């Protein structure tokens, strides 16, 4: 596992992939060596371990140094977890719990019983989806979803949502002011509305940033829409080219127009070409950046880079997808990627080690 932003005590901006060193390792806790999932908010990281002893460990801005890296007692036996800046939501087989991370309390600030779906009803869905609906980022926490949508996965930002249905269709709702709903305008939608531009093309993976939305088609193509002010869509962004003066080599030519078209808001899905061409397997978004893993184990990142979240050893933002060369150099295959608000976590497999 690697991340692109260290703990507060050390470097704040970690601009090249760095292995997640766990203080917990020294205490002999759960390890980052066994497979675990990562969820991250702005100031914290949650490591989810789902083995015989399921638990969640927290790192980052935790209320007491003593807690850092240790499994949370409250999380023992949980099936899934979500972390936001203010709370940790845990899914158990019979209930959901939301714990306030800003206070040290003995009981969850919110909880709800759930009826576990019958075993035969197909693969269980992950948070924020729950039986009958989903867990929102602000109250009311539980929102119902029509079963007709056949929700397979759901991604949320604080203001918009995208749902992937079993049929491969995607629906969006929430605030549309930055084109993040993909319906072609800037209006908001109160109810899930199908993204018509993608109908007929089944999608397999979805992700949301604070103001943008990304999805992958069954065929491995990447579609992006929403705000592009930091280049998070991978389309030309004006702000990233402001300081470039006309270089002497390309002075104004007679009769030629060198007008670059910049995209601030992309209100309809756009197909994003990554060169050299490749198939995308999974994608994740931070607030203003995007990270995508190809079927051949490469990681591409683009968007806001001020905190090193793109992993290219710089603090530069980019409006073009660029491969994170580190993994190739280290002969590592990237298997998956998860983004926190301003950072990126990549799960890798070393080429010489056989998977088991």
């Amino acid at each position, binding site marked *: 596992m690697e991340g692109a932003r260290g703990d507060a005590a050390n470097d*704040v901006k970690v601009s090249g992939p760095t292995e997640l060193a766990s203080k917990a390792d020294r205490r002999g806790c759960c390890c980052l060596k066994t497979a675990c999932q990562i969820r991250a908010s702005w100031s914290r990281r949650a490591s989810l371990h789902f083995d015989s002893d399921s638990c969640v460990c927290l790192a980052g801005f935790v209320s007491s140094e003593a807690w850092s890296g240790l499994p949370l007692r409250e999380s023992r036996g949980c099936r899934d977890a979500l972390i936001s800046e203010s709370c940790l939501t845990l899914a158990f087989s019979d209930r959901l719990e939301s714990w306030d991370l800003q206070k040290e309390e003995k009981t969850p600030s919110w909880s709800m019983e759930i009826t576990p779906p019958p075993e035969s009803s197909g693969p269980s869905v992950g948070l924020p989806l729950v039986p009958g609906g989903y867990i929102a980022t602000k109250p009311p926490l539980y929102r119902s979803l029509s079963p007709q949508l056949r929700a397979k996965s759901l991604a949320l930002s604080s*203001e918009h949502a995208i749902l992937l249905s079993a049929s491969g269709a995607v629906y969006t709702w929430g605030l549309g002011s930055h084109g993040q709903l993909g319906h072609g305008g800037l209006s908001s939608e109160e109810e899930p509305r199908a993204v018509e531009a993608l109908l007929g093309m089944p999608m397999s993976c979805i992700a949301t940033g604070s103001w943008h939305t990304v999805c992958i088609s069954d065929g491995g193509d990447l579609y992006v829409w929403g705000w592009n002010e930091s280049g998070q869509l991978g389309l030309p962004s004006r702000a990233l080219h402001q300081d470039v003066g006309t270089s002497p080599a390309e002075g104004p030519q007679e009769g030629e127009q060198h007008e670059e078209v910049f995209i601030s808001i992309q209100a309809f899905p756009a197909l994003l070409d990554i060169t050299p061409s490749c198939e995308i397997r999974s994608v994740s978004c931070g607030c203003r950046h995007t990270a995508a893993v190809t079927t051949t184990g490469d990681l591409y990142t683009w968007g806001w880079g001020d905190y090193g979240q793109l992993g290219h050893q710089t603090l530069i933002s980019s409006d073009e997808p660029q491969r994170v060369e580190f993994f190739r150099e280290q002969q590592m295959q990237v298997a998956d990627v998860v983004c926190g608000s301003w950072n990126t976590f990549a799960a890798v497999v070393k080429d010489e080690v056989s998977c088991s």
Partner: protein
Amino acid sequence: MKTVSSTATLWSKISAALPRDEEEFPLQFGDKVESSVVEMLKRCRRQLYSDATAASRMLNAQIVVDVSWEKLNTGTWRHVDKEWRRVYSCGCLFKVAALCRDDPSADEVVQAVRTCDMGLLMGADIMDDILQVIVRILQGEVRKPTELEEESEHTEVKRMKTEIPRAPVIKEELAIPRIKCPSLESFSTNYLLPLKPVVLEGTIGHWPALNEHPWSIGYLRSVAGCRTVPVEVGSRYTDEGWSQTLLTVNEFIDRHIWNKEGVKGLGYLAQHQLFDQIPELKEDIRPPDYCCLGEGDEDDITVNAWFGPGGTVSPLHQDPQQNFLAQVVGSKYIRLYSPEDTDKLYPHQSKLLHNTSQVEVENPDAERFPEFARAPYLECVLQPGDVLFIPVRHWHYVRSLELSFSVSFWWS
């Protein structure tokens, strides 16, 4: 009380404006601001009063600025929690302190002014408007244009004025009536209550902007040249290529008044509460006495600046308040349509633009908008010293005929 010598450094002046120590520096925010962010703010405050590297101070301040900027852009502006705007202002304050601490370069001072402006434009008042206090200190340090530069620019402006603008000829039967200094009662009875437009003459002659401090490009540069303001770029806000950007007043004048860099697209410093941002300019104007006929106080009046070259266009639209549009520099062609004729004006359907007509007033598409030609209207050329009364919800179209500076007063 801190004492500063007459050769005080910039930092000593700024530091004198700040709270004396950590204990006196308030950092109280509502629940919406997470403890992790408050922690960052506390680190910034600690570093303000103790040793730290410049890099570390900048980093922590920038983290606060970045995280609060994201909150300010989340949801609708109207619903952004004021606490987050205060956090943003605090972040800007810490950033300015970091920039100015150790013998700042000219560029760092410019950055600091810009940072104060961002805090003033997007943040909310903290510590008795401390950003306003600090930007004033900083403005004193910024290089002013030399007398020679001012003189040559003054000549340029004079030359511009002798080129006669293509002013439309106002037909008498369509002219907005003009009246000189009506009494409050007469204005109320004849224009306000019946909601009839009128051009008031001779009512702002006493403004310093038209007397002791006549507004000119040179004057604006000296008072506000290094200050950052929002500028609209593009022919009109209903066009696809239209965008908003932030420029210093100097940059705006260079690029969009003089067009020094061959920049495409008109620039318009439009609908901006410049006078809250730059109090020296506020002292050059006065709200029209007639505003007292309204319901609110002077504080309820929204004052906006409209400054730009010839050719700027505000498409036909209506506003939900009464408007006094005062012309200070240059002239504008204005056309008014009554709200009773809205059905002939083809407003946009979308919620965002439903107060804006789809019709290009001076070049209407008769096929798409056949009824428009039948809509009655009144028009005028507004000159320096004139104040146009635009009754509430009256549709208005404005085109500047030359370099122009207007001030609008929205009241109820």
